[in-house]
């Protein structure tokens, strides 16, 4: 419980110095509105994960405390990369986050799947962190400094005629961060890791890990490579569209609910990736809004999985049949989450998608928006299949599901977030202008 208290304190501090804008550690890290809001989001995410983990872990009787420590390390890494000014800190933060994720992925020692997940994550992760380092080196080669603002100034006043190495460096960094975020050609690790590692870790990785990486990605682009060159923009759009289609298509046939959530996470990355080519004034706002809705929806979706794990080993979708009869509140929450992930109006997911499409169309990538729309149509198949299973059909055995207070609290909060943001998006928009 002490941990949660600590986290709440940290959350309060970050909100407290909302207004102040200055940098610490000789300009390595800065606390502008962007970094503070994302840090707060990451802290909240970790808090939820810590809140839910005791009940989950004592069933697996794993050393709950070590895993909590790992999560906090990951959180530290996350906060670093969300508020970095110096590229060096970006690399260190990414590494801190990744290494603690490798450990978390393998946290269930006896389970072979978890081992395999951590192996895969480790090997691919370290290969692509070297890409990141090489990219930073190349960018340093051309601009002569690690400081993001200096690079940004150098790049913008250099205009078009900048040494080609710079673009190669930028591309290397995109590939590395693309991997971290599980974008299209580099997404292969994500389904296996998310499926293999224990459900609690998957929740943590897919929410905290992904949003931290996106925060870093966008911060880098907003600060350093602001006038995103058009063909780099198209490249990221292609990556985004590819991610969406692969994620959505593969999720269609998944019998296992967990693996379906993994692929849906990959698909959601595809949508978020559209923010990068359109980076500029509104992109931070869009990312933050979508980040919150994605986290809220994932928390609900995964908490159902966690609750089911209490009673049955199998993670197949058929477990959900007839849920509405046993537990109408949970079924309603999952329905809202699924509607939000699919992007149906009254929920926050819709406005997030709309906001994202407006941004992308504004930056001139309308074809990408059309593809995004088509892929979100494909996603209806499996999101609604869950809703259909819950509301039609009779559950085989009457498992009397009792929801511990921690779960009902977190589900309730996420539900409020999804509906409130859906009906009154005005609260958040314009926050990070």
């Amino acid at each position: 419980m002490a941990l949660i208290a600590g986290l709440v304190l940290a959350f309060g501090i970050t909100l407290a110095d909302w207004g102040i804008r200055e940098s610490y550690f000789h300009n390595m890290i800065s606390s502008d509105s962007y970094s503070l809001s994302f840090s707060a989001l990451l802290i909240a995410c970790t808090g939820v994960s810590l809140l839910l983990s005791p009940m989950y872990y004592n069933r697996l009787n794993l050393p709950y405390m070590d895993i909590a420590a790992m999560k906090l390390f990951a959180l530290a890494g996350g906060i670093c990369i969300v508020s970095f000014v110096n590229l060096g800190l970006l690399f260190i933060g990414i590494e801190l986050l990744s290494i603690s994720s490798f450990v978390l992925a393998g946290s269930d020692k006896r389970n072979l799947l978890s081992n395999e997940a951590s192996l895969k994550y480790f090997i691919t992760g370290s290969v692509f962190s070297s890409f990141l380092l090489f990219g930073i080196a190349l960018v340093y080669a051309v601009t002569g400094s690690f400081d993001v603002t200096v690079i940004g100034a150098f790049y913008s006043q250099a205009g078009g005629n900048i040494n080609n190495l710079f673009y190669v460096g930028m591309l290397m960094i995109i590939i590395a961060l693309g991997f971290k975020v599980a974008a299209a050609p580099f997404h292969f690790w994500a389904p296996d890791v998310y499926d293999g590692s224990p459900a609690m870790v998957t929740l943590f990785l897919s929410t905290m890990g992904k949003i931290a990486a996106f925060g870093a990605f966008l911060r880098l682009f907003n600060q350093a490579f602001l006038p995103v060159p058009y063909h780099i923009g198209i490249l990221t759009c292609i990556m985004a569209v590819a991610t969406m289609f692969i994620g959505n298509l593969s999720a269609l046939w998944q019998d296992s609910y967990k693996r379906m959530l993994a692929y849906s996470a990959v698909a959601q990355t595809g949508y978020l990736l559209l923010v990068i080519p359109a980076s500029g004034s509104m992109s931070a706002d869009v990312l933050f809004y979508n980040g919150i809705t994605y986290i809220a929806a994932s928390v609900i979706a995964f908490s159902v999985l966690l609750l089911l794990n209490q009673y049955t080993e199998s993670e197949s979708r058929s477990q959900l049949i007839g849920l509405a009869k046993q537990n109408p509140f949970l079924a309603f929450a999952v329905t809202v989450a699924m509607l939000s992930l699919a992007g149906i109006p009254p929920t926050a997911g819709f406005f997030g998608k709309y906001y994202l499409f407006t941004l992308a169309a504004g930056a001139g990538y309308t074809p990408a928006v059309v593809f995004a729309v088509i892929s979100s149509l494909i996603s209806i198949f499996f999101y609604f299949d869950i809703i259909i299973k819950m509301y039609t059909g009779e559950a085989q055995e009457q498992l009397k599901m009792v929801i511990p207070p921690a779960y009902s609290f977190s589900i309730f909060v996420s539900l409020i977030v999804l509906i409130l943001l859906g009906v009154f998006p005005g609260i958040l928009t314009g926050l990070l202008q």
Partner: protein
Amino acid sequence: MNLTFAQIALAALPFLPLAGFAVNGLWGRRFKETTIGIVGCGSILLSFLLSVFLFMANLSGSFATVQVRLFDWIPVANGSIGFSLMADPLSLIMLLVITGVGLLIHLYSVGYMHGDAGFARFFAYLNLFIFFMLLLVLADNFLLLFAGWEGVGLCSFLLIGFWFTNESYNAAAKKAFVMNRIGDLGFLLGMFLIVFTYGSLNFDQVFTAAATAGGANNATIIAITLLLFWGACGKSAQIPLYTWLPDAMAGPTPVSALIHAATMVTAGIYLVARCHVLFSLAPFTLSVVLAVGVATALLAATIALFQTDIKKVLAYSTVSQLGYMFAALGTGAYVAGLFHVVTHAFFKALLFLGAGAVIHALHHEQDLRNMGGLRTELPFVYRIFLVGTLAISGIPVFSGFFSKDEILMNVFQHHTVAWGLLFIGALLTTFYMFRLLALAFWGEKRGHHANYVPMNTTMKLPLAVLAFLSFAGGFAGLPEFTGLNWLHHYLSPVFSDVTLHNEPHLSIGVELGLMAFTVLAIAGVIWFYASRFKHLQTRELNQLNGELPWYKKLPANKYYVDEWYNRLLVQPINRLSDFLYRVADTLIIDGLVNRIGGMVLSAGNRARKLQSGDIGIYLYVMLAGASGLFLLYVLLGS
């Protein structure tokens, strides 16, 4: 508003039958038959008295035309079409016929329908029919006329399919309504053209605009008149759209008498007469009307020669007589056409009710082959049937002679070939009418009918009145040269503006000669048939049972028109419907959508396989992806 009494009468006129319909319709089942009869006939009696009052007022010159506007119905173009009624000499004549004959038929059907389960329903429908017919005749704009037009079509559907437990009657009713609808479509298109060119649908505005525009035979006028004539063909069963009338005999006989002899089928003629201004501006259409009229008259007459069902013979005879009326209109002799409408209403209603009496007496036996020798058994029916037959054949003194002769006279001046065909038609009419008379009444008794159902007075009275009218009706329009043609004088204000280019400039001598010639020919036919009717009858009976010679087979089977319609129109549509549903809808359009869904699912399956699980392959593909990005960057960058 100072509504004159005439206007109040006019306004009330159509709504009396409607009230009758409402009363019988809603509470009919609770009343006894007599009360239903009283309500039914009473409402028609009242409207008959009102129309007689209006007629007298008109005769006494208190008003030329009376008009009353009840309320605004539909705003069209600039003006707005009102739910307004108008009565002028033309509609008054039709009014008298409708309410008069209608009243008699109502009385008759009290007796005829005695004991039928749907007694109340029958009278309700009859009253509704009279309401729509009055609406049609009294309308002062095309739209209200169209409302009445479709209304009578609806009532004919209800009444033909009155005994709805019989499947074939239902089919006949549906066929009648759909065929009427085809005609109504033409009428609707004609109305659109009128609004499009003249900007309004009120008769007087349209006719004045048309008259001022002038310019005979321009394309729009011809188109309008042709479309209106197409609607009239649908309703008055002319050549292309006549096959529904013989099938309409499925309804009870009073219905056939009222609707398919006296009133509804004459709606087409009323429409052409009402729009005489338009038609006279389009001589081409008039010649079409003449041609269609003559063709229908001849065709129907030939078919009637070989029919064995008593009502079918009369049905084809009606189609043929309608052909005569349209021929008269075709020559521009609107008054002659209307005169024949009136007389035809009398004697054809008489014949139908007579036939009804026969059927009633012989327990619903309609086949002529097992009738015969009824002259002695049903003397009264035989006598009125004889009057009707003489009237329709055009024997002097009887009403048919005057009206048919006037038509022949007008057609003779206009188009001698047409006159010749119509003359042959007249002979054929006489032949098949006397054949019917002989088969039913003369000769020895065939069939096994013994105790005849007696007729009560409510059936006898209308028959007697109709017989008198068929006899005396002709004097309303004595031939022109006698100067006593009252009808012509009465209707002249309505048709005054039409330049009656065919004023009978024939000398009296030629006219008398023609008249004598036709009478002699008809008398010859009667004598020929009467003298050897036994021999002719036996030959025809065994021919009917056995194999008909080729030249008789064609008309006997109604020239296979019904079969042609079926094969050329009805079956292809049904086959198309089956094809469209099974192939186009489920296979192609629906199939396409489902296939797209299927494709997405199979793509999902393949995408799933992409995740092979082997780390080596992952790394390989990822690095390949990275180099692919570089390649793409280079390609895009250049």
